[in-house]
Structure formats: structure tokens, C-alpha cells
């Protein structure tokens, strides 16, 4: 077992680099692009929920803001997509920072309600500002990204583009989680009062991590807009916020690689349940229920425990901790 974080990361990078060769020519490359985007989003939410213990039911809004800012400014106003991407991330981060102060004073259900409200407001704005966003039927004509002579116009190129950014986000998140800040966040998670007594500026730190989370989400949104070349409000509604939450919980709270597993599972699973036709949704729901019942720590802890149990040959009387 590789315990060292650097080895883990290298193995992860290797996996990501191998996948395109394995999936050569398959439509699954396209699905993997979205797995990358969802991984970023899940990590963003995990930093907030899994580490700092602050729930958000409105993360689809940050994702949507990034996507729409990129979409509108490049498609309608013809601005440089890379500049817009950075500007959108900064803008969304600032917005999160500003609303973070009042919102993050709330706890538990109240915080969930406030973030939910924020998500719904943004969703309504996407729908109603028809002249700017194109309204419910969406905004098309968003250009693909270009870097010098390379235009990111195929699934494979987009795969590399999205995953390079995702790998950077993973690196950042892993380092952050393992730093003084990460430890402070976990302290806030366990007891905010205790953390403050120990000299952690809990209020500021919560807002900062909320803003960082929004920045990553916005970045994912910009990439989404340019790879899809189309955005519509339906992709950024409450349902998607809940789906993100599911990814984080199923993958494993407080684990960066867990977020990847959650995103991978929830994005790919529907593809492999298609043979069940009309019953796929039932099975999908059932599977999620079973997973959360038997792997409450998420896939990232549940799968190794399961494998260990299988390898030790289920010796009677022996219990394996999950």
C-alpha cells in the first residue's frame, strides 16, 4: 500500500494519463470529460462540507455563474475566453466572499436553507434575464478554447484540457487539506468553539474556504461552457446541487480522492445501467441507498475495507474495521 501522498498523486496522474489510451475512440472519453468537471465540483464542495463541516445546497449556482459568465462574455461579447475564465473565477470568488460573511454565521439547517435560497435566486436569474442569458432555452454559440495553434474542439483534447486543470485542483486540495489550514478546518468541523479557543479565526477561515470553493466551481463552470459550447439553466438547478452533495457523500467526506470516486461513479453509473431501460432509475436509487448503508464512510473507505475482507478470505470470527 502506498501511503505517501506524493506516490498517491503520481498514481492518480498515471491513471488519468492511461485512460485515453484505454478508451481510444470510445464515446466514454466524452463522459470522462464530465467526470473531470464533476470531480472539480465535488472537491470544491468537499473542502467546504467534508473538511470545514459547512453544508451548501447552492453550489450549482457558482458552477452556473462561471459557465454563464464565460458563455455570455465570449459568445455575445467576443472577449478572450482565458481572460474571461480568470475574471469569472475572481468575480465569483469575491461574490462568495461577500455573501459568505452573513451566510456562514448560520449553522446546520439554517445554513442549508440560506445556501439553498442563494442557489434558487441564481437559477431564477438565469431563467428570467432572457436578453442576456438566452433564458430557459439556453445560450448557444460558445466558442471552444484555443491555445496558440491548438483548438480544443475534440473530446480527446478537451479531456486533456479539463483533466490538467482537475489534476491541478486535486494537487491544491490535497496540499491544502494536509496543511495548517486543513487542520484548522477539521478543528472547526469538530468544534468551532474549541477551534476558536485554540486561536483559529474560524469566521474568516470559513468564509475563505467558501470563496475558494466558489472559485474552483466557477473554473469548472467555465470549462463546462467551452466544452459543451452551450449552456442552459436546467443544468444548474437545485437537482444538480443535490447531485454534487451525493457525489461528495458517496465518495467519502473529507477525502479528495473520494470526491473523484463519487464523481466517477455518479457520472458513469447511469451509462452502465442503460440495459435496464425503464428500471435504471430504481436500480440507481437502490444502489446509492445500499452504498450509504454499508459504506457510510464513502467509497474511498468502503472499497479498501471490502477488498481487505475479500482477501483475508473472510476468516470466521475475524472482524475487519471499515
Amino acid at each position, binding site marked *: 500500500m502506498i501511503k505517501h501522498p506524493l506516490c498517491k498523486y503520481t498514481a492518480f496522474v498515471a491513471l488519468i494519463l492511461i485512460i485515453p489510451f484505454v*478508451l481510444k475512440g470510445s464515446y466514454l472519453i*466524452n463522459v470522462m470529460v464530465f467526470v473531470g468537471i464533476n470531480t472539480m465540483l465535488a472537491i470544491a464542495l468537499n473542502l467546504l462540507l467534508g473538511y470545514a463541516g459547512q453544508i451548501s445546497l447552492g453550489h450549482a449556482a457558482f458552477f452556473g455563474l462561471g459557465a454563464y459568465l464565460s458563455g455570455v462574455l465570449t459568445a455575445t461579447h467576443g472577449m478572450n475566453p482565458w481572460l474571461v475564465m480568470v475574471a469569472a473565477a475572481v468575480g465569483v470568488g469575491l461574490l462568495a466572499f461577500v455573501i459568505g460573511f452573513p451566510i456562514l454565521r448560520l449553522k446546520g439547517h439554517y445554513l442549508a436553507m440560506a445556501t439553498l435560497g442563494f442557489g434558487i435566486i441564481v437559477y431564477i436569474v438565469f431563467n428570467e434575464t432572457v436578453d442576456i442569458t438566452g433564458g430557459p432555452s439556453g445560450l448557444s454559440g460558445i466558442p471552444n478554447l484555443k491555445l496558440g495553434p491548438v483548438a480544443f474542439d475534440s473530446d480527446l483534447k478537451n479531456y486533456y484540457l479539463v483533466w490538467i486543470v482537475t489534476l491541478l485542483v486535486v494537487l491544491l486540495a490535497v496540499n491544502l487539506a494536509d496543511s495548517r489550514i486543513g487542520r484548522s478546518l477539521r478543528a472547526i468541523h469538530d468544534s468551532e468553539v474549541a477551534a476558536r479557543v485554540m486561536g483559529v479565526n474560524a469566521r474568516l477561515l470559513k468564509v475563505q474556504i467558501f470563496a475558494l470553493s466558489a472559485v474552483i466551481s466557477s473554473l469548472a463552470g467555465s470549462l463546462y461552457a467551452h466544452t459543451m459550447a452551450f449552456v442552459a439553466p436546467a443544468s444548474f438547478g437545485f437537482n444538480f446541487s443535490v447531485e454534487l452533495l451525493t457525489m461528495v457523500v458517496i465518495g467519502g467526506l473529507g477525502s479528495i480522492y473520494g470526491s473523484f470516486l463519487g464523481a466517477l461513479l455518479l457520472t458513469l453509473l447511469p451509462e452502465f445501467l442503460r440495459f435496464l431501460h*425503464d428500471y435504471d432509475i430504481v436500480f440507481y436509487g437502490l444502489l446509492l441507498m445500499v452504498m450509504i448503508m454499508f459504506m457510510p464512510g464513502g467509497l474511498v473507505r468502503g472499497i479498501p475495507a471490502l477488498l481487505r475482507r475479500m482477501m483475508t478470505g473472510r476468516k470466521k470470527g475475524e472482524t475487519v474495521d471499515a
Partner: protein
Amino acid sequence: MGHRLLSYLLAAVFMLSGASAFAAPTIKIGALFSVTGPAAFLGEPERNTAVMVVDQINKAGGIKGKKIELIVYDTNGDATKAKQLVNKLIKNDKVSAIIGPSTTGESMAIINDVEKAGVPLISCAAGIKITEPVKKWVFKTAQNDSLAVARIYEYLQKNRLNKVAILTVSDGFGQSGREQLKAQAKKYGISVVSDDTYGPKDTDMSPQLTKIRGSKAQALICWGTNPGPAVVAKNARQLGLKMPVFMSHGVSSKKFIQLAGDAAEGLKLPSGKVIVADLLPASDPQKKSLMAFVNDYKKHYRAEGDHFGGHAWDAVMLLKGAIERGGDTPAAIRDQLEKTRQFHGIGGTFTFTSQDHAGLGKDAFVLVEVKNKDWVIVK
């Protein structure tokens, strides 16, 4: 946990990638319908109809001796999923043509992909943006909203009602209707004196209607899909609104009459001919197709065939015609689709040209009125 977990994942990825089959020569046609999710009311009848029609064609010996293999995927009404699935249809299933998706948003999301891959797409969504401007590989069967608006305005003009209030739902359908209602008003000498919207899930429209009652409007046009317009009809009756009320083709199904109950009486709306198929004169060129579709659908699914199913019926039959005339390669299908002339389908009589990939005229709609809980054609 690191590498062991990852290597298992990798093994899983390996196994999944080897799945592609080779079968007897068939014509593969892909279909993307939103069978579940918020647009299921579109996708379900579309899927049912497509499956039914393809079965019938295959039982009758296929097209030029080749059977059709229909590959249907459910998009959940989600543009992201539609994008993934259209890639699957093109790259994995290698289909010759695609029908669907059910909604305008999903259709817009996948246009780039079919254009790039060169696979003909016949969308079942109504949005005017899908075929305007014309895209080489994209066609559609659902009637443009502009034709429905024109039907209402013609009637209003004839009856000298020139001040209207419009009340539209704030989703893609209502948005498109609202744009068309405002854009075409001038042409018919009509002025929109009140312009309001309501949310798709609103349960009371009295405030908007009270405002409209106080305006100078001589007629109310409400643009939405179930259940909103039924609420409008009920509220209008409760408020004692005297002006004639028009609905859109978005509610031209029996379901609307059930929802609105007595309040539906006397409402007028433009509609495709499916719901009044049996009332049409035998001289109507669409009569034969319409009766075939309505009867078959009832026999198969014990339900009323509706417009949405009709869009899929048209899409499959247009493809059949194109393949019969040309070959079954994507390029041949596209070229022949564009040469479709006077095809009497469910949604109307289609004539595609290189400038028009929607193919329908004003005759696609008739104006109907609700009388005794049923439809009658307004002359």
C-alpha cells in the same frame, strides 16, 4: 489504499471499453428522448411511438429488405446527458440518423456534434432556433410556435379584436411564444396592451389576471403547458373575466380539459390536427396518416395518441421515405430528407428545401374550441 484501489478501477475501465458488437446488416437509427424527468410528458409518447412505428416497418419487411434497429436513450431532459448520449450514438453505436431530442435546449446542445460528425438529426422539439438559421444536418418535425401565433392573430384580426393581453409561462416554451406574440402583433394590426408572465409551478394567477381585467385588452392569450393554463382558465372564470381567452397548442390534449374542468368551456386554441383527426373532412390530405397513427397508438398503448408522439411518427416516416429514395448512409439520408416534398404527416404537410428544414406551413394548425368537454374545429 492508494494503488490497489486505482488498479481495480483501471481493470474496470479496461473491461468496459471492449463492448462493441457486430450484427446482421441493419439500418441503425438512434433516438434521444427525455423519457424521464421534467419533460417526460414529451419523451414518453415520443419513445412509445417511435418503437411502435419501427416495429411496424420491420414486420412489413423493413426498408428495402433491411430491418431498422432503433437505439433509444433516455436523456432525462438534461442537456449535459444529451451531449454525452449523442456522442455514444455517433461513436459507439455508429447510427445512420438520429431522432429527438424532445426539448429545444437539448437539441441546441447537440447540434455541434451532429454537424461535426455529419449525421442527420430530426429534432422533435419546437424551438425556432433549431432550424433557423438552417444547419446542414439538422431538421425538425414539431411545428414552429410562429405558426400557432399566426393562427390566433388571423382569427383576432377577422373578428376585429385588436388589443390583447398576453400571459406566458417563464420557461423555454413560454419564452418562445412571448417573443412570437410580440413580434407578429404589428403585422396583424394588433397591439399587446399587457404583457405578464407566471412561473411554471405557480398555483394562482389571480394577480396577473386582475391586472389584465383592469387593462384595455379585448382578448387574453395564455402561453404555457399543463398545468399552468388550467389554473389561468379557472382563475379567469372566478374573476369573471369577460374577454375571450386563447390558449397555446401546448395544452391541446384531453388532459387540459380534465384539469380545467368547466372553466375550459369556450376556450379557443391553435392545435395540430391529431386531436380532431376524426372530425376532419375526408378530403384533408393528412387524414389517412392521422387516423393510422391515432388507431395504432390506441391499440398498442391504450392511450390517446398526441402531438408529441406525432413528432416522432413524422421523424421515423420522414427517415423511411428518405432511405427508400436514396441509400442508408448518413449523407444519402440527409440529401434525400432535404428533397422531401408534400409528405402528409401528423404535424402537417412537410416540404423541406435547402432554405427550410422545418418544412411546415400555416395549414399545420387548426383553431379548435372546447365544447362539452371535447374539441370542435372553429371555422
